[in-house]
């Protein structure tokens, strides 16, 4: 069971490291504007996630109290919600620019 836990943690860390590299590359490719500002915020959040993913198995290995693990977990939940909000905002900007969205009536 412990091996499965560490295995999943390692997989999450690898995937998140790849995501972080992709996000930084895309940020560097964006010239500026609101989209780049929001993307920068998302990249910062990804750095937080990556740190939390690395901290998770370390805390588990050190057998820290459950309360500490819970704080870390819920912090990731909160940041995850913010991440989703920023992602929706960027997608809304892009879709509204291309006039894909239907305008609300009234």
């Amino acid at each position, binding site marked *: 069971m412990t091996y499965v836990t560490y295995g999943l943690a390692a997989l999450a860390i690898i995937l998140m490291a790849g995501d972080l590299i992709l996000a930084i590359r895309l940020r560097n490719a*964006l*010239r*500026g*504007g*609101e*989209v*780049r500002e929001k993307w920068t915020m998302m990249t910062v959040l990804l750095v937080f996630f990556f740190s939390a993913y690395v901290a998770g198995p370390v805390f588990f290995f050190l057998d820290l109290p459950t309360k500490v693990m819970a704080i870390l977990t819920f912090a990731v939940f909160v940041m995850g919600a913010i991440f989703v909000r920023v992602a929706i905002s960027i997608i809304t*900007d*892009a879709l509204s*620019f291309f006039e894909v969205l239907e305008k609300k009536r009234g």
Partner: protein
Amino acid sequence: MSASAILQEINSIEGVAGSFVCDPAGRMIARSPVSLFDDTALADATRTLVETASPLLEDGGSGELDLLYEDGRLVVRPLPGALLCVLCVPRLNMALLNLRTSMALKALRQALADDAAARDRPASPATRMGVAIEEVLGDDAGKVLAMLPEGDPSPQELGPTVREIERFTRLFIGRDQADDLADRLQSILSGS
């Protein structure tokens, strides 16, 4: 009809290699075919030609200069503020050439007058907007310039485009540039 199209009609006479119109300073106004000699050689030749021909040909008069060489012939006829030059073989049907150039001169006068009027006309809003976009965005102007409609659209037609350009710039380039660009494009649209 454009000056180039008129010259092409002259060129259709058998024995004509090409033709061009140059101004009194020897600058090329129109030529057909475009590959007729290289630019430098043609510019030198036209300058010399104009210096030689100007005393002989009154501006817009009915004179003609016919330079006959061993392996070629140059027929020069005057236009208002320009010269029509036809390069041809030494022996060709001159009556046909004279008839065709006489007809072409009338059309060329009109075409050159139209070109001059177009040059004197103030730049269209779309053109001025293109200049403003290049000034504000510099190297980033390419994609925004592609958003401008082709042709000569009216200010009403350009209204939505201005909003799109402002939005694109705000999202993908920068807020300050978007504000600056929006001000400049709106002032162009309002004609101030």
